[in-house]
């Protein structure tokens, strides 16, 4: 099986703090892979390293055997990595459809001159982009809401729109950051089905940060556990559930470890 993304001894430091501590991960293509860990374990930092917002202080990140370390976020998006955010970050005063069109940015080519003179090429491209954006809206279940301003969408719809925007770049790897945060059990179940559908129908690889253990255990094929930036366990859901180090990381063992845990991600 091909590897979608691999980190080798990934290291990220903030001052004296080791946010990511020599993490080795191999994420196979077409899998649903979860990264879990207590608050401040370095999960979002891990995402920020992969997507180019942070430059790692050591180690390497290989995306389909190609290093992405040192590339700017937009270059990395072009290569096929897209992400969503823990707290929804839509272009909130733009319309739903425009959000998706922005997501397509890296796949469109119109330059200033194309835009001003509306060349046949640009016109065709734009038309195609709009119809593609519409079918993407239908795919995530937001058909007909294209002209709504994004901030007016209900919460669940905003989550879906964020995913649709990420999908618009036709990524090979999708990073989801707590996609079910703030959802009720029913919505959470829908989201789980939706994530599976993404993987199966679009044939992409999904990396997931999630706190809801039902979601993590329900849809992940493999799970990695981070604690204080270091990987403390990796395996199938069943293996992780039985791992004493994971239990300790989440629940703590005594006073000493709980006080140690107060720090920011």
């Amino acid at each position, binding site marked *: 099986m091909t590897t979608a993304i691999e980190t080798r001894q990934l290291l990220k430091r903030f001052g004296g703090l080791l946010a990511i501590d020599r993490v080795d991960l191999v994420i196979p293509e077409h899998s649903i892979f979860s990264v879990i860990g207590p608050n401040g374990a370095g999960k979002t930092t891990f995402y920020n390293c992969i*997507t180019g*917002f942070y430059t790692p202080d050591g180690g390497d990140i290989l995306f389909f055997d190609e290093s992405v370390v040192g590339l*700017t*976020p*937009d270059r990395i*998006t*072009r290569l096929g990595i*897209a*992400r969503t*955010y823990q707290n929804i*970050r*839509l*272009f*909130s*005063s*733009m*319309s*739903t*459809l*425009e959000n998706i*069109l*922005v*997501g397509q*940015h*890296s*796949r*469109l*080519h*119109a*330059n*200033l001159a*194309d*835009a*001003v*003179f*509306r060349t046949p090429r*640009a016109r065709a491209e*734009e*038309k195609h982009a*709009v*119809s593609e954006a*519409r079918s993407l*809206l*239908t795919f995530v279940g937001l*058909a*007909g*809401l*294209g*002209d709504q*301003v994004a901030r007016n969408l209900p919460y669940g719809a905003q989550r879906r729109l964020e995913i649709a*925007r990420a999908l618009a*770049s036709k990524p090979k790897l999708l990073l989801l950051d707590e996609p079910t945060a703030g959802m009720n059990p029913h919505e959470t179940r829908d989201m789980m089905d939706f994530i599976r559908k993404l993987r199966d129908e679009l044939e992409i690889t999904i990396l997931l940060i999630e706190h809801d253990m039902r979601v993590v255990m329900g849809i992940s094929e493999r799970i990695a556990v981070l604690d204080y930036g270091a990987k403390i366990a990796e395996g199938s859901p069943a293996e992780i559930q039985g791992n004493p180090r994971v239990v300790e990381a989440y629940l703590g063992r005594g006073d000493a470890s709980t006080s140690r845990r107060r720090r920011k991600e």
Partner: protein
Amino acid sequence: MKTRIRNGANAGIVFGIVTIFLILIGFTGTAAELISKLIHAGSLARSLGMTEGMFSLLLFMAVLGILAGWYGGRQLRDLPDTWSSVLVRSTLAGAVHGLLVGIVVYVIGTLNANGVKMTTYLPQLLPAAIKQLLFGMEPFPAVVFYLILLTVMGTAGGALGRVLGRGAWRHRFAEGWRRRWESLQHLPSVQWVAGHRWSRFAFFGIIILLIVLLPLVLGQYWNYTLGTIGIYVLLGLGLNIVVGLAGLLDLGYVAFFAIGAYTVALLTAPQPHQLNWNFWATVPFAIILAAIAGILLGIPVLRMRGDYLAIVTLGFGQIIAILLKSDIMTPFTGGPKGVSGVGGPTLFGRGFTDVHFVYLIALSVLLVIFVTRRLQNSRIGRAWEAMREDENVARANGINVLTTKLMAFSTGAAFAGLGGLLFAARNQFTGPEDHNLMVSINVLAVLIVGGMGSIPGVIAGAFALKGLPEVLRELEDYRVLAFGALLVVMMILRPNGLWPTSRRKLDIKAEDNAPPDPEAASSTKGAQ
């Protein structure tokens, strides 16, 4: 009861201070003068035993009193909305208002009567103005008069406010108009006209006809004003791209205006370089130079955001302004005295008159609107807006923010260059004073008043800020005051500008062949 008293008294104090301030700066006299011109109530005033000026002042004071009462009696969350509560508060507001104003008028009147020359302290308080302020009475009766007038007006204002100003009533009114407007939009005939492909041409035809005919009937002065408004529309549209769309707060925007103006000036003028180029040949140079300057100034500030960007660009603007004045640049730019004898455009061997300049500026505005619209609705425009909304997320969506920002800076600068070249050519002169910080601030104000990111907003803003002061020439001395007041009122009443942006409808479009979701289509069709 205690809260009522406090609220009413507070309103009275606020209005008292405002009114005293207006009296001390002499604004009351100007306002009275304006009112007399507006209503010509000379005979009515005389029948009441007053001069026309006093009568107008009385009206002005009455309006202030009504406003104080209205404000004092306004609906408050922690107070009952009953007649007694409203009237107690508004009457009290009026009384406090009247008392404060009365005391000041008494002091001024007494000092004046005792031979103190008030003009030494407050230049606006001429003896005639003081007499008007006292309504021809002795100081003490005047105080009583003010107290009674403003108390009565306060009560009236409170009652008026309760009858007219209540949320539900206003809401019903607004709702009624909205519904009427919508039903109008749904009329088959209106839909036919709006949906017809020719209606757009007809709309533009009317606008173009207006642009062609209007300058012919206006005099030289108004054509000049119209031209100035047009140039500000150009500048506003340029800054709109940088600030409104891309969200880059640029306070040194005047630099590009200056570059456009000076390029034309130096290339065409006999002094200081004797180049004597033809105006038309300089146009591309001016625009391209401004665009390049936009990129050059953009590069160092690429990584800055928000406040830092504003401060650094402010610095750039100042550098340009100071350079233009400096001795080092004098041999090159003419220094503080500027460049005169700037060559204007000619067509078929004839120079341009004011009317022609209005045409030329209008043509440029139309061109810039066209370009802006095309850009706004393209991949580039979306990238700008995405960057404005959230720069990091824009990057994560594959947008190269460095090139996208530079594109915004250079496009905005090119528009400013066009504005600058027209400005210099029309005035046949350009100097450092034309390119100071105030230009940047004025253009930004045009954007804020009109509505960020909105093309009709920029036009409305330019008319409001550059046209209105010309119309209100009488207010000359208070223009800055009126300017500030207008901005404050605007920000309260229409925080998104006179004409805020509306999102383009892309989802369901008649001319698109892609079959949309039928259910959604039927529900949104009406909005088209």
